[in-house]
């Protein structure tokens, strides 16, 4: 009987693997013909990254050499692209008049890299990262000292950049998203990856929109970003994604969606034609990873040999091929509804692990820095095994967990071997801790920290150390309560967080969360605004403010009201205004039909009931009349209330109005732990009510009395006198220095009076009044910070016309009712 004819379109990993699966089952059933557009034998495309990095050669990655085709009697049309599948004549036609009649066809055309339609995309030196030709083009350009830009911070883009860096180039990855490999990693893992890449010569630019590829003499010379930055480069690699290569199938009249649509038997809409690999679309899903492709090939083998086999979709896991960077990701790594996160961070070793549990089973995992247990988690996930009984130790990995299965948490800790490492930061084993507890009679967490350093760094093993204390001491151990944690996401208090930000040069929210072992992936509405403020205060000019970590009022520069409208308060320096300003305010009130206009306690005018979409226009009009944001919404300098002083008042002793204006001009724009309100009174009659403000000044004949720590809200408290000085200049410096000290020491949402209660008036007096050098240094730091913060947010917002908070994203019309 004549053999059936099997024609394979595509000589890549999927096509050849499918052939192997057929040969494995029935080696003599088919006469096989393979078309390959690339003039090479079958090689492992996945391993192109190590070839680029110089860690492997092409020969190392060949899967099937010429002998394989010969041994199996395969006709191989190398370098011949297929041009047509004629389903009526049952013939596959290739370039140059090659024809192959068929009984069955396997489509394995793979995918094409996406080329962004940017101006300059056709310049020499702009390449994609798909086949050996691309790799060779990159290697040719990779002279030491040359610069490479890679667009795309996905798996492939990062591997390309790493490979180029290994070849001696300075590589930069430009990514549209804020998270590298966002389909595989969460923000924490992405942060660690970016850090590890820097050590390997790869810079990353996140949240970057590419605008144009620049060229000189027909060759790429740089990439222009939408924000105006230019990244010079000698080679530009586009690694922004792949598109299933389905044109041939579409032309042949097969059903094509994103890819060639196949059923569970891998048959296309024509049952004689199968599709496999990246060109196929199965149950709405296209795959770009190798593991699912191998599973598809098994189903192809079964179908073509009349066996019952079916592909039912794949669970995915990913590993990054960058030497020394251990990354693993699988499943619902980002969690979701009904999911629970178990997070482990070891700041010292740069380890981050997150295992997601759903209905008592592992639903996903992302591991960074220590990914050996990835396969185990993936296995638990695919088997859908119940892990409730090993939840306590799951995050420590397979070795520890398997040994302890079936024990309660205390017993599990008791059963851990003595050499098990409890504290990853300081390398302290269980045996060392237990011995110290018993031999030195330690009875508290702090004592253990002091004696062994266990739990003294990131603190993520605190619970384990406490369990060891209670195991060794029984009822004698009482878990202590340390400083009140910032929120439920951490066990660290504000003071520790602030000091670690400085001590470890932590410069982003993910960096803090990693170093201090936050137990949630991206914090909560309590800790994020606090961290944002602490970072802003610690690294003026350096830290990029995170709008999404600010309360709405500070994001939209207005005060949200009970009905979702906003109130707008223009700044009136020292409470002074003018006819022109009042006229502009009146015009705005009319124009935008603002329902309520009211005087505030801080001598300002409050416009209430402004619709959110009107805010930018309201600001524009107020800006045009010379007014700026009054920050009446922020944890910031609010107002300096004044009386009329020597200008008009017959009792005035100094120019209190003028001083108030000067103070407000010096302090406006500064962000503080909580709101800051000031008052300046021109005599002890105190008409500006300065003695219930956060900071107050009472003018007297001989100078200025400086007051601090008043409150007139939920708590009522008169100020304390900090000291007295003779000149306006000293007063200004002292007030700025107090503000800076409070900015640096205050806990988020802690008003000045509470901070003073905590640290003591004497401590503040010593730092400000008794230490002229310290005070001058505080003053300098304040001025430095102010040089970055005195920007009117209204003008900034009103000028920005891009996608924003203020306009709705879309307006849906009312649906037409059904007949």
């Amino acid at each position: 009987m004549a053999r059936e004819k099997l024609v394979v379109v595509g000589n890549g990993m999927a096509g050849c693997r499918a052939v192997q699966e057929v040969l494995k089952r029935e080696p003599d059933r088919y006469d096989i013909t393979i078309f390959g557009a690339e003039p090479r034998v079958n090689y492992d495309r996945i391993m192109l990254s190590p070839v680029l990095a110089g860690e492997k050669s092409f020969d190392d990655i060949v899967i099937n050499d010429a002998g394989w085709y010969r041994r199996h009697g395969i006709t191989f049309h190398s370098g011949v692209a297929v041009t047509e599948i004629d389903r009526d004549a049952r013939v596959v036609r290739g370039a140059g008049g090659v024809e192959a009649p068929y009984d069955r066809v396997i489509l394995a055309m793979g995918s094409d890299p996406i080329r962004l339609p940017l101006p300059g995309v056709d310049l020499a030196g702009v390449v994609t990262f798909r086949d050996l030709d691309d790799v060779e083009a990159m290697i040719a350009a990779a002279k030491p000292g040359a610069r490479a830009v890679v667009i795309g911070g996905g798996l492939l883009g990062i591997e390309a950049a790493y490979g180029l860096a290994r070849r001696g180039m300075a590589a930069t990855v430009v990514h549209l998203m804020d998270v590298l490999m966002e389909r595989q990693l969460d923000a924490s893992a992405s942060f660690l990856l970016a850090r590890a890449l820097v050590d390997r010569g790869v810079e990353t630019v996140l949240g970057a929109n590419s605008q144009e590829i620049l060229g000189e003499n027909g060759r790429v010379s740089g990439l222009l970003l939408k924000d105006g930055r230019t990244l010079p480069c000698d080679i530009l690699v586009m690694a922004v994604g792949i598109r299933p290569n389905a044109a041939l199938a579409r032309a042949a009249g097969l059903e094509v969606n994103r890819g060639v649509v196949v059923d569970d038997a891998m048959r296309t809409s024509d049952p004689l034609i199968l599709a496999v690999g990246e060109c196929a679309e199965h149950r709405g899903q296209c795959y770009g990873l190798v593991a699912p492709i191998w599973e598809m090939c098994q189903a192809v083998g079964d179908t073509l040999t009349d066996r019952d086999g079916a592909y039912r979709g794949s669970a995915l896991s990913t590993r990054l091929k960058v030497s020394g960077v251990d990354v693993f990701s699988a499943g619902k790594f980002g969690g979701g509804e009904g999911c629970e996160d178990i997070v482990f961070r070891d700041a010292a070793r740069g380890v981050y692990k997150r295992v997601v549990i759903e209905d008592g089973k592992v639903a996903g995992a992302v591991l960074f820095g220590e990914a050996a247990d990835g396969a185990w988690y993936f296995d638990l996930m695919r088997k859908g095994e119940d892990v409730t009984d090993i939840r306590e130790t799951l995050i420590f990995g397979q070795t520890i967990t398997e040994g302890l299965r079936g024990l309660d948490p205390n017993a599990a800790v008791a059963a851990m071997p003595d050499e098990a490492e409890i504290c990853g930061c300081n390398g302290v084993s269980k045996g060392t801790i237990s011995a110290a507890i018993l031999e030195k009679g330690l009875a508290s967490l702090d004592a253990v920290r002091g004696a062994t350093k266990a739990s003294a760094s990131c603190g993520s093993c605190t619970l384990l150390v406490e369990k060891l204390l209670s195991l060794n001491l029984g009822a004698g151990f009482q878990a202590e309560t340390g400083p009140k944690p910032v929120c439920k996401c951490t066990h660290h208090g504000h003071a520790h967080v602030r000091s670690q930000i400085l001590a470890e040069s932590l410069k982003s929210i993910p960096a803090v969360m990693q170093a201090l072992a936050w137990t949630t992936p991206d914090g909560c509405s309590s800790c994020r605004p606090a961290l944002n403020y602490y970072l802003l205060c610690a690294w003026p000019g350096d830290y990029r403010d995170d709008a999404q970590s600010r309360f709405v009022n500070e994001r939209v520069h207005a005060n949200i009201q009970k009905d979702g409208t906003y109130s707008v308060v223009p700044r009136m320096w020292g409470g002074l205004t003018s006819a022109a300003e009042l006229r502009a305010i009146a015009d705005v009130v009319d124009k935008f039909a603002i329902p309520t206009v009211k005087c505030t306690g801080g001598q300002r005018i409050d416009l209430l009931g402004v619709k959110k979409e009107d805010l930018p226009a309201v600001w524009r009009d107020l800006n045009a009349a010379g007014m700026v944001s009054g920050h009446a919404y922020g944890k910031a300098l609010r107002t300096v209330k004044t009386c009329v002083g020597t200008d008009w008042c017959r009792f005035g002793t100094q120019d209190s109005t003028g001083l108030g204006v000067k103070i407000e001009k010096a302090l406006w724009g500064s962000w503080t732990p909580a709101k800051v309100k000031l008052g300046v009174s021109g005599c002890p009659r105190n008409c500006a009510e300065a003695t219930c403000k956060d900071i107050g000044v009472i003018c007297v004949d001989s100078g200025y009395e400086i007051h601090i720590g008043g409150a007139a809200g939920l708590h009522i408290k008169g100020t304390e006198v900090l000291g007295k000085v003779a000149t306006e200049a000293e007063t200004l410096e002292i007030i700025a220095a107090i503000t800076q000290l409070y900015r640096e020491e205050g806990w988020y949402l802690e008003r000045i009076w509470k901070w003073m209660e905590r640290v003591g008036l004497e401590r503040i007096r010593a730092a400000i009044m008794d230490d002229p050098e310290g005070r001058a240094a505080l003053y300098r730091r304040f001025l430095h910070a102010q040089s970055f913060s005195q920007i009117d947010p209204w003008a900034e917002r009103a000028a920005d016309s891009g996608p924003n908070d203020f306009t709705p994203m879309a307006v849906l019309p009312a649906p037409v009712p059904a007949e």
Partner: protein
Amino acid sequence: MNACAPTIDYDWRDVGDVNDIPRRGARRVTSARGDIAIFRTGDDKVFALMDRCPHKAGPLSQGIVHGHAVACPLHNWTIDLATGEPTGADAGKGCAPTVPVRIEDGRVLLAHGPDGHGG
């Protein structure tokens, strides 16, 4: 519960690019039945709820997004984005109705019309 993707054939409306919603942020879509809040979480999931907190009708789109939850800007109730229900101490006190939403090729598609809540 809205854990599963809806199987009804909604009339899906393209309301914009997913990148117009900041990570850990939200945008509004106005509709005849009231504003709809579309959230994008830190791990790039997208959810949609009617933009009214079950407590005092605060605009949830203006809250701080953390994990798969949002803190209402008025009184800090924490609302689960997938169910629209308050969590923690306020669990069981009403809900913000969910609106089916999905992402296709980077576009945000919102269910619209009699079957969805969007109309």
